[in-house]
């Protein structure tokens, strides 16, 4: 650039050029004659909240009627009482129904509010609006999708929102129908009913692992009902019990259909193929894999929130996807798998459960990934290869999916004759051996060992030095890595040996040096978890089986003393264990800090176990080491 923008506000010479009495406008004066201070005004209590839960479905009913021609009529009827400010103003003012207008129709049959006075107020016509689902914003291939927004009006505390909506799905939508409805909701539910009616001749498949239904027949129709009463609210959809049934197909047939859809999406576009060929020139196999993956993740913008199920498992032809520059996760998985095959790496699109151990099979899957056949190191069952799972939307994810998910959590849309590794708990081990100099500088070694789902395989393949630097900087701010050796690296295990140097914090006003250990052994997955008090209303999702061990050995120079060690603590229960131990051997401080979490979920009523572990893990005193350099070492005897 030859010129720079001047950042000084310009009074604009043009006004002078324009001439003719265009005076420069002035800013209004601060504190102009308008009053905003309303001191002395009373503040009456004007919101008459109703006691009890924030909101409660008195009744929540979903019925699904499948005709012989494949038409499905879904009716939702609900009566929801709102009691609190939160319920009325934030949580329950609108209902949303996403749909595909090319195959579905949404009719709002009833949208009214029954007031505590007994009056019933019908919502006006402009309270029903069609807009675009956020998940496909900007994606031209899916811009035809719509969301029906039903705004509830005349709300006041104690009012009951009465809603009845009918969604009719045409037979051409899909050759089978999958019912998949949470029994619980985002408010307590008094009475819950989900009902399916379908021609017996169509076949009704009830996958295992989901909420059990009452199964019967009425004439030539199969009727399945799921009932519930007094259900607690559930905030996270993944934590909800689901009513699931499939009409018109079984697991094998559905899988065959989805596989055929992948094939029907067409071959890899030529231009993509050329890019893959270019990327495949990378001689190192791991880097070649990542280079091909990046061809797609860097070329295409992804509608990340567009779930494969939400889009009816449909896929746009791959050449259209490539040309548009936009993909859904399922389309990206299909395209990436095709690209990998083009580059000589066997791969197929796959569908994966939201979390390990969820109900198995097609009915349990949620997200699209790529399954890759990779030469096995060992334990492949003689196939010579093992399966890697890669989320093409999130290549930055440092740890391998297949270390968390088993074959039972995944459905491959194609054939890969490879073995699966057994998922292993995420385990990380840190061993630091540091020697402190009299001036507070330190140097030493740092050993990092990872296994299972904690293995930062992707990050180490990408840039081991950057990973090492980040790990070292958590020991103490400004710590530098002087050497890195990756002593082991595969998908399920990795080890690094570093040498480092740095400096402890300067002594504070009391002459003490504060050493914080928490960052060195951080478990960011635990940071967002609530510290649940007694009576916590719902189950809590956990990051899964993890184990973390940190051992620090710090050799102090002559004259330095330990003012206090990290406070020892331990907690152990059915959910896991936390332990912190520290001691001094001569001039060496030895600290061991461990965490073990054995579950994916804490049920209501068991949250005190989580609290006990988190309290111990987060305890500030167990994370601090205080050192006393010689200049101010205490000379007085200790108090009793």
């Amino acid at each position: 650039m030859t010129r720079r923008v001047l950042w000084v506000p310009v009074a604009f010479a043009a006004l002078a050029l324009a001439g003719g009495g265009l005076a420069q406008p002035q800013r209004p004066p601060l504190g102009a004659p308008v009053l905003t201070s309303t001191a002395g005004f009373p503040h009456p209590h004007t919101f008459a909240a109703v006691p009890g839960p924030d909101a409660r479905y008195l009744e929540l009913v979903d019925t699904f009627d499948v005709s012989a021609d494949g038409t499905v009529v879904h009716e939702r009827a609900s009566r929801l009482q709102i009691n609190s400010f939160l319920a009325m103003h934030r949580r329950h003012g609108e209902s949303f129904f996403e749909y595909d207008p090319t195959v579905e129709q949404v009719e709002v049959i009833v949208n009214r509010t029954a007031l505590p006075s007994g009056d019933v107020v019908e919502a006006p016509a402009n309270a029903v609006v069609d807009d675009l689902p956020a998940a496909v914003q900007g994606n031209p291939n899916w811009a035809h999708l719509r969301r029906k927004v039903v705004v509830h009006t005349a709300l006041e505390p104690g009012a009951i929102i009465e809603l009845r909506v009918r969604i009719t799905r045409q037979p051409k939508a899909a050759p089978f129908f999958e019912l998949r409805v949470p029994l619980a909701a985002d408010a307590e539910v008094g009475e819950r009913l989900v009902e399916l009616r379908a021609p017996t001749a169509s076949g009704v498949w009830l996958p295992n692992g989901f909420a059990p239904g009452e199964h019967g027949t009425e004439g030539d129709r199969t009727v399945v009902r799921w009932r519930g009463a007094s259900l607690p609210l559930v905030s996270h959809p993944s934590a909800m019990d689901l009513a699931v049934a499939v009409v018109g197909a079984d697991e094998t047939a559905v899988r065959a259909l989805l596989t055929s859809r992948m094939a029907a999406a067409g071959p890899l576009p030529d231009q993509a193929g050329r890019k893959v060929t270019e990327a495949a020139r990378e001689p190192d196999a791991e880097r070649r894999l990542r280079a091909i993956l990046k061809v797609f993740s860097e070329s295409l913008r992804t509608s990340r929130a567009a779930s494969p199920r939400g889009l009816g498992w449909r896929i746009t032809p791959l050449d259209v996807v490539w040309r548009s520059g936009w993909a859904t996760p399922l389309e990206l998985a299909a395209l990436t798998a095709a690209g990998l095959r083009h580059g000589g790496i066997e791969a197929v699109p796959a569908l994966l459960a939201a979390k390990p151990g969820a109900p198995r099979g097609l009915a349990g899957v949620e997200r699209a990934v790529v399954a890759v056949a990779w030469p096995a190191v060992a334990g492949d069952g003689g196939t010579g290869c093992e399966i890697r799972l890669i989320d093409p939307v999130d290549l930055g994810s440092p740890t391998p999916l297949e270390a968390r998910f088993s074959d039972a959590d995944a459905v491959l849309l194609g054939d890969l004759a490879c073995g699966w590794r057994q998922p292993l708990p995420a385990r990380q081990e840190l061993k630091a051996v540091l020697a402190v100099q009299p001036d507070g500088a330190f140097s030493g070694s740092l050993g990092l060992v990872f296994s299972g789902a904690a293995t930062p395989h992707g990050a180490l393949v990408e840039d081991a030095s950057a990973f090492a630097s980040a790990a070292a900087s958590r020991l103490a701010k400004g710590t530098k890595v002087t050497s890195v050796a990756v002593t082991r690296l595969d998908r399920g295990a990795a080890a690094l040996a570093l040498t480092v140097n740095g400096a402890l914090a300067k002594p504070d006003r009391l002459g003490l040096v504060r050493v914080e250990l928490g960052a060195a052994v951080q478990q960011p997955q635990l940071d967002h978890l609530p510290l649940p008090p007694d009576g916590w209303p719902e189950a809590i999702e956990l990051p899964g089986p993890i184990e973390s061990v940190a051992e620090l050995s710090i050799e102090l120079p002559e004259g330095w003393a330990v003012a206090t060690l990290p406070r020892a603590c331990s907690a152990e229960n059915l959910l896991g264990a936390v332990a912190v131990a520290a001691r001094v051997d001569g001039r060496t401080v030895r600290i061991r800090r461990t965490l073990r979490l054995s579950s994916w979920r804490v049920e209501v009523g068991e949250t005190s176990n989580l609290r006990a572990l988190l309290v111990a893990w987060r305890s500030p005193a167990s994370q601090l080491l205080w050192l006393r350099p010689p200049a101010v070492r205490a000379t007085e005897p200790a108090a009793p």
Partner: protein
Amino acid sequence: MRRALSCVLLTMAPALAGASPFWDIPVEKLRQAASAVDAAAYPKADAVIIFDRREVEVEDSGLSRTVRHTLTRVLSPAGARELASQILPYDPLSADVAVLRCRVLTWDGKVRDVSPGDVLDVPDHQWLIYWNSRHRLVPVGKLDPGDLVELVTRRVGFTYALLDDGSEGGESRFVPPMKGHFYDIVPLWADVPAIEQRYRVRIAAAKALQYQIYNAAAEVSDRREGDSRVVTVVVRDFVPLDREPGMAALSDVAPKLLLTTAADWNAKALWFHGVQEDAGSFEVTPEIRALAESVTRGLPTPESKVAALNHWVAENIRYIGLHMGEGEGYTLHPAAMTLADRGGVCKDKAGMLVALLRAVGLESYAAMTMAGERIEYLAADQFNHCVTVWRRGDGEAILLDPTWIPGVREMWSSREQQQEVLLGLPEGADLLTTPLSPPEAHPLEVSIRSRLDAAGDLEGTMTVRADGQSDAALRRIYRNRLRAEWRAVDESWLVQVAPDAELIRIDRPDPDDLSKPWAMTLSFRIPGYATRLDDGTLLLTPLSARHPVGVASRADELHLSTEPQTRRYPTRVGCTRLVTLAETLTLPPGSRVEGLPKEARLDGNGRFESTWTVKGDTLAVKETLALTTRIVEPEQWPSLRAALVAFRDLAEATLSVRLAARKEVSR
């Protein structure tokens, strides 16, 4: 889905006129223009705008048509993904936009046309305001670094749907309701560098166009062509601003151009007043009168009536935007409609309050403002928010904001201090700036009486009192959580700094009850709060100094970044605020305290005072921090920063408490 068919007709217009439009540039010249730009000069940019040219024609009616021609070079894969589709938003009732041309000049010398017929017309994804806004989605397609994207669009109309009666066809619905007038607000900033940004407007010379450029230097031409006036503004070599944490809105500090034919704000205020009165937005129906009388029954003063009605609207009219069809925009929904829906956006809540106030005989009007951004003193419409004015018997105008005061013990939210406002009074009004709200109006007082035993356990009571916006910040935490989670909120005041704290008892008010300032008292015990050192002394930071309530409520005084030593741009805090932390800590008998920090006293935009003293066995902590303005100018920042740093340093300051030997104790 509708296709943008109108573009076919639009593209014919210049041909019929016999002149080549300004945007019809041969590909070679476009490549030439792009090649003059050194992409290496922008190593961090994902794209660079080679040029962005707008030609605006204003009709006598005030209707404007803007043709915009942009050429953008893709510099990175991220830029390629970002530009793969382009969104052109519009409100169908007041504007339209069409694509005249879109083509990609690829890095390897090819040209790919995107047919205007492939442009999609799509509803926006909406949230809370369901006004049926839409956008044209331009499917540019997959790009590579080095590609050039050329886009030509034609926009007609205004940003807001105003008082069109819907009876006229064609483009008449795009004529602004302030008949014959034109305004434009032109951001001259972007997320990527822009080599040339040009804006040219042709308007009848008789219309007294005023304009001003802010925060940039520009080349300007302002000349007559027959009966027209042609103004051209060119800003060159824009580079994206280096963002500063907590900085003021971009529109306050980035380059922009404002244009208007409105003589002054008074004219706009008169128009705004007339629009609402003519539309009957504040008509008092029997239902509204009955409600107003019911809410104010027995209240003795106008102030008490105003307060009751303002809070009633704030708490009982839900913020939700339903589209009433013609007139949406600057026209406030009829109050009867808002009451029936029990919902509306800011303007509708403001109008509801006007009607209720009038129903009890109080003089009231609507007013416009701009939340979060500055309104410049050029009468281009820069508004995003609507509030209410009560004109008291003595003629004083008092601002009321029923949208921003749910759960707030104020009539007007002090989060809107130092903000411009235009009152829609019958006699008109000039633009005003709301005055500062002193920090003393928003106190947060945390008082702790605690006792430390020789084992290092701490127990005591913590009393928290707050008012104004500080009260609202605490109340909001409860009101935004499920009641079943309130126990966790109760605990959060302590466990965020001391996870093993035991909450023994809490007394706190109903968060919905605004009649009294927030006051809660917690009894607590924290085992092992102090750390025992090798010499037997106890090490601790007084609980009050760690500001546990501020930590739990993510208070500005703890979270506003102090990383910048100096700032180029103003900083914006949530509200002025006065924080007082006090603790009386009873120590084990005969203890000796070491490491007391010195008294501090800082003045300026941030005022801070602290004293930590020991008298006998009692440690007394007193800290006072005042954030004195909501907008902090760059020259005021060092003072605020110094106060915040000093305040936060004390949260880490440790004391040693040397316990008395046994015989000393017995003595």
